[in-house]
């Protein structure tokens, strides 16, 4: 009777399931990182990974945390909410893991939020800036600032500093982009600007000629583009090719990266942005980070590397204070005041997010320079 094959095979699978977990060294302190290491956002996740690895190397070289080395468990979420939730299951069920850093996009972070909430583990996202994110669970923390802060800041920059009143918006169509757009548009309208049109694009799009042609028809003086530097480079180049030169381009701090200059070439000259992280910042912690990063990776760190670096250092600092209990870590993290991050001072509000200082930047001759006028 070959039908016995059925239960036998199923038993085999059962065994496979049981055998799946992997063992790792016992004395280390484990922190999980859920980040897009592959997929559309891989580049940003890899930035994190570089900064975090370097920070961990430094911490361990200095004797670890009270003698125990720090070990990072990376999980590739592709910034896909489903994978991010699956990783959350995995991390929270692993008793050695004391806290988690991630995820990249607001969407992915929020998908995993209920799982961390249920399990009682800190979820500290370096980049999630959706205003509704951190308040969603007592276990959620954000350190990049929220759109509620950055949007009005950028609107003021456009209207009051640059004097542009006819504005159009082109935003990435995700949680972050929509929140960015809304806070910017509301603030700009309040400040008396005229928002002529709002267009959006999906993260996978590379062709902006159609939407740029449409926006151009509205004859704006300034376009505000909440997007990432990858798309911004394409938008700038395609705008240039269409011959649309009589417009000012501006975007939030997510654009700030040496990569933008590399990818965008001449077309990004004259682009206005802001930064919470600026490599020429003379503060010693920033210089230490930038020098170390440049030595190790032969590249200048960008904002994404900066916030990840801050996240891991803040986490290490907290663990150093209270040990490895998940609850204790949360309770200590809430109290953070004036942590000296490379992206500015970190102090959590009662909503467990932070208020950032932004610097005005403009691209001049292929370089980011501080804008002061």
């Amino acid at each position, binding site marked *: *009777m*070959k*039908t*016995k*094959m*059925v*239960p036998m*095979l*199923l*038993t085999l*699978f*059962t065994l*496979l*399931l*049981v*055998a*799946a*977990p*992997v063992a790792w060294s016992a004395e280390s302190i484990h922190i999980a990182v859920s980040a897009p*290491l*592959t997929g559309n956002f891989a580049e940003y996740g890899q930035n994190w990974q570089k900064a975090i690895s370097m920070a961990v190397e430094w911490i361990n070289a200095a004797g670890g945390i009270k003698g125990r080395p720090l070990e990072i468990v990376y999980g*590739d979420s592709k910034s*896909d*909410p*489903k994978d991010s*939730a*699956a990783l959350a*299951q*995995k991390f*929270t*069920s*692993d008793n050695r893991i004391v806290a988690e850093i991630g995820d990249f996009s*607001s*969407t992915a972070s*929020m*998908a995993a*939020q*209920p*799982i961390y909430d*249920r*399990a009682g583990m800190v979820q500290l996202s370096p980049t999630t800036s959706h205003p509704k994110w951190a308040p*969603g669970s007592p276990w959620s923390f954000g350190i990049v600032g929220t759109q509620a802060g950055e949007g009005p800041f950028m609107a003021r920059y456009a209207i009051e500093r640059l004097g542009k009143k006819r504005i159009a918006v082109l935003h990435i*169509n*995700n*949680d972050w982009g*929509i929140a960015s757009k809304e806070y910017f548009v509301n603030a700009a309208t309040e400040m008396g600007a005229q928002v002529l049109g709002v267009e959006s694009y*999906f*993260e996978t799009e590379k062709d902006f000629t159609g939407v740029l042609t449409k926006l151009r028809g509205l004859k704006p003086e300034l376009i505000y583009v909440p997007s990432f530097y990858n798309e911004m480079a394409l938008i700038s180049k395609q705008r240039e090719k269409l011959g649309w030169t009589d417009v000012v381009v501006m975007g939030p701090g997510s654009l700030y990266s040496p990569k933008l200059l590399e990818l965008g070439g001449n077309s990004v000259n004259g682009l206005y942005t802001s930064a919470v992280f600026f490599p020429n910042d003379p503060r010693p912690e920033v210089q230490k980070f930038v020098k170390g990063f440049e030595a190790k990776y032969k590249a200048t760190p960008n904002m994404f590397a900066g916030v990840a670096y801050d996240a891991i250092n803040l986490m290490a600092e907290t663990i150093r204070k209270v040990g490895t209990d998940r609850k204790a870590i949360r309770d200590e993290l809430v109290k953070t005041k004036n942590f000296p991050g490379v992206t500015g001072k970190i102090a959590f509000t009662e909503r467990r997010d932070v208020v950032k200082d932004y610097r005005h930047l403009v691209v001049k001759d292929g370089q980011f320079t501080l804008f002061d006028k």
Partner: protein
Amino acid sequence: MPLYDFVPRRDNWYVWLPVLAALLLFPLLVRSEYILSIAVYAGIYIILTSSLNITNGYTGLFSFGHAAFYGIGAYTAAILATRLGLSFWLTLPLAGVVAGIFGAAIALPTLRLTGIFLALVTIGFQEITFLVTLNWIGLTRGPMGIPAIPPPAIGGVALSGNLGYYYLILALDVIVLGLLSRIVTSRVGRAFVAIREDELAAQSAGIPTFRMKILSFVIATFFAGIAGAFFAHHARFVSADSFRLDETFAILTMLIVGGMGSLVGPVLGAVLLVVLPEASRFLAEYRGVVYGLILIGVILFRPEGLAGVPGIIQARGALSRVDKPSGAGEPVG
């Protein structure tokens, strides 16, 4: 008796007892949330592959849009639960019904097409569903997805850990497989297979083929919707990315690797392909490559999969009858 021929019957039900016992005891042995969550995912994919098997395997209609119906089910449950506050026990059947209605709506105009054309229309539908979900922000919250879907509650107690979900999906799997096995071993299931094997002969045996094909599509999409509802209440978050063409391909790969046209095949395929990538994290970067190689290897060397009925994917749709001069005699180099 070959594995693909296995159907639970009165005289062989007892072989399932040890399996069921093992599955019931399994969570008590492993006690790991992570492993349980993998098991829960395997359970969801068992429903998805088994339901896709009704159209692609039993009826021989190649649908390439299963993830769309899965997504429709998930969104239906998510919207009903978060907006109207319906409980899981209501959203589950409703999600199935809505997905089934969509299935019928797609099937009615398109099932007159066969073979590759049907595959293409379903791909088109898949993409359209994805894009509409992404764009219709008022209903679906677009790219932001729908968070905070309440967990199922049993006797007033909401499920919290994966243990509860595990037993829930186990029960759901047993019910779904039981229903599917009753369908495929009945006059209805025979009509499906007859259509797959030879539509003209089926018609001349008095089978209303068009109506049966619609029925098969509706059954498949209904259960895809059920799987979607469970997914929504388990992940507690849905977004359009989870239901893209890649997801259809993943389900299809599981079905093909497990084997089409049998009850056992899809179960094996789903479990294997959910567990394998998790058990081989070291392959992380090459996961897609490994998936692709498995798919190609299976089609080239064992087209019936692990436990499928041989020869189904080679079945020729109407279109291939266009090239009638070929295929006769020995192949000639």
